[in-house]
């Protein structure tokens, strides 16, 4: 029996698909999995696992971790990772990788527990500044660590500080000779023109950019050398060792640009903190 043309074409299509499935979908991946068992490859193929002194898996060298307590307070004996948007709480959940997806002009808080990206940046900068004993101020941030954003109502003689709910005192008393109000919950300020205020913070804040922004994966294992340097004094003090000793470990966990131009120099926080625990255990 001969099949009609259109049907035999679809049968051929199904057969091609099945052949390609066997070749590229089963044989090929299994060959790669098998070859990846070879010594030299298997460590990476298994996820670059690192172990603590007791032999248990402490994580992966490639996957960042939070070094904060369950409630979010940083554990001062460890180098801190970047903020992470992967999962809830302290982030760094590999079952929910990803970034914040918040845009460059997300400056108005969306309600309790839903801060804008600007407020997140300001709050992180303030917290890192306090932890490291440096100036945590940034442009467009209030001293209390939220986005310095006003709603200006043209022709109504009215200005509201959008991210400072009452009874917080607004970060400036007046704007263009108009007294600034705090934001009352439930009130609609959509008619006001959203106006971020630069303030007088230094153009190059002491807290580096990577310390106040989340990565794309939420699993970034690295921080910039600048952020590592900022943390060295605290680590040395808490662990009872010298700054030089800590710097040596930082250098050991720093990767420069490959070939001198690929990527950015980066310090692997996971490797660094495990090295610290080995060399200068914390006796808290």
């Amino acid at each position, binding site marked *: 029996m001969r099949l009609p043309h*259109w049907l035999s074409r*679809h049968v*051929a*299509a199904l*057969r091609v*698909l099945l*052949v390609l*499935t066997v*070749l*590229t*979908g089963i044989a*090929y991946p299994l*060959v*790669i999995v098998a070859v990846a068992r070879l010594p030299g490859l298997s460590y*990476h*193929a*298994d*996820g670059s*696992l690192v172990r*603590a002194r007791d032999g248990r*898996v*402490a994580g*992966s060298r*490639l*996957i960042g*971790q*939070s*070094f904060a*307590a369950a409630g979010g307070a940083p554990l001062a004996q460890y180098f801190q990772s*970047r903020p992470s948007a*992967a999962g809830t709480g302290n982030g760094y*959940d*590999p*079952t*929910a990788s*990803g*970034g914040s997806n*918040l*845009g*460059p*002009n997300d400056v108005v808080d969306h309600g309790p527990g839903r801060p804008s990206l*600007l407020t997140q*940046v300001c709050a992180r900068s303030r917290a890192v500044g306090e932890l490291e004993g440096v100036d945590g101020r*940034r442009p467009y941030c209030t001293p209390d660590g939220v986005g310095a954003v006003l709603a200006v109502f043209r022709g109504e003689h009215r200005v509201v500080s959008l991210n400072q709910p009452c009874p917080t005192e607004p970060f400036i008393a007046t704007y263009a000779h108009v007294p600034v109000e705090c934001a009352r919950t439930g009130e609609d300020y959509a008619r006001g023109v959203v106006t971020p205020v*630069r303030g007088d913070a230094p153009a190059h804040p002491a807290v580096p950019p*990577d310390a106040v*922004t*989340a*990565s*794309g*994966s939420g*699993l*970034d*294992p*690295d921080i*910039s050398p600048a952020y590592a340097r900022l943390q060295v004094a605290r680590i040395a003090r808490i662990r009872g060792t010298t700054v030089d000793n800590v710097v040596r470990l930082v250098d050991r966990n720093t*990767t420069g640009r490959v070939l001198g131009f*690929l*990527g*950015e120099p980066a310090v692997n926080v996971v490797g660094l903190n495990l090295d610290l625990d080995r060399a200068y255990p914390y006796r808290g």
Partner: protein
Amino acid sequence: MGSTGAGALLIVSLVVALAAAYRPVGDWLYRVFTGRRHWRVERVIYRLVGVDPDGEQNWGGYARSVLAFSAVSVLFLYAFLRLQNRLWLSLGRPPVKPDQAWNTAASFVTNTNWQSYSGESTMGHLVQMAGLTVQNFSSAAVGIAVAVALVRGFARGRTGRLGNFWVDLVRVCLRVLLPVAVVGALVFVAAGAVDNLSAGHDAHTPAGAAQRLPGGPVASQEIIKEFGTNGGGFYNANSAHPFENPTSWTNWLQIFLLLVIGFSLPRAFGRMVGDKRQGLAIALVMAVLALGSVIAINGFQLAHRGTVPQAVGAATEGVEARFGVPQSATFAAATTLTSTGAVDSVHDSYTALGGGVAMANMMLGEVAPGGTGSGLYGILVLAVITVFVAGLMVGRTPEYLGKKISAREIKFASLYFLTTPGLVLVGAAAAMALKAARVSMLNTGPHGLSEVLYAYTSAANNNGSAFAGLNADTAWYNTTLGVTMLLGRFVPMIFVLGLAGALAAQRPVPVSAGTLRTHQPLFAGMVVGVVLIAVALTYLPALALGPLAEGL
């Protein structure tokens, strides 16, 4: 050296590497498309499948084969996703829900790889391998096959025959994609990409928390994801995930891989039409557009305009520390200039104009250099439109590569060009009109509109990257974006094959003194101009409401 200097050197190194690859890769592709001998394993496959490898097809037969293969692929992948819980290596995950399975099947078969799911919590290992990875190979090969059929239309005369789709498909998979994938996957493993069949490891972190580290056959999918300009990540974070893209040099390699076929295909085209200079001219058009875009997006990201980047002091939100801002920006340009859509940073958090460039790259029709195959046929259609415009200006019957561009040809070319903008603008407008679709936006104001516009642009152009704040896992977006991807892929393909058939049937006209020299800089410049003007006229109003309103 500063970050900007390193970023500039990265661009230079990519240009050098792609220029060096142009001849060898192009010549290799040429031999694959034109070789008369079949490998023994290919003969076995043709016998198993029941096709005659030496029987050529006319444009209708070729198109029906493309559609049959793709339709079967969508159904097969849909069933696979729905039944994954009954198969091995499902990691105990439930079936993918119907609207998401439809979206994913359409997405991977169309080389889009838009993902409304996150891989680490939705897909089992078997469906990643035998479902999604297979489409990474075959959808790339389908694109190349259609491009080759169009080139045969230019190269041949007075014939209806455009080659054999099954042969083109099998050859590209076996001779081009698979060998590179085998070597490349192992290179990625050596760099740190994971590749195993494990369900993962439980780690106990020094901070006293538990962390679940995922496993999976990642490296084998990663390489073809870039080389086939697919872009679907094994994990949600895609190429930002350290298990997919562990180092700064794998980042370079990924950018190179996703560009190399697109930039080398014009060489194969030039050789097939018997004039290498024609291929070079097309490659230069692609290069000019690509370089302009790469420089623009780097400029906007380094200038970091916008309140949050100004507060931070750099556009580092959504950027990995090991890649840095400029090298992520170059990746973003490359992935949207091709149909890849892999991301190593969060496009939604880019500066308004930086993200706008990523969107505009896709709106160019992804022709610089575009997806595997689709980039070449896209730019050739635009070249046809350019000779038509030039012919109108001097009052001569336009010709391209010895073929007259008459009413029939220009109809196919125009319909090709109009399909994608129609899908983008209608889709985005419909979504904005519906409250249920608007609530999916994460960001507010113009940036929210950008999220929706980006989604339909990405789907219609088969890119797959996203302003990922948009919650696209809803019945509306899964369904409409699935339809958009299928129409955006196969309607233009039918027009391309129709154009190929019309061209192949012609008797070649000899070159005369009045023939427009299509290998010269004048013509290359005209193509660049036509691309930019046509795109600007089509999309400027939409862009003005989104990225331009936010960034200016």
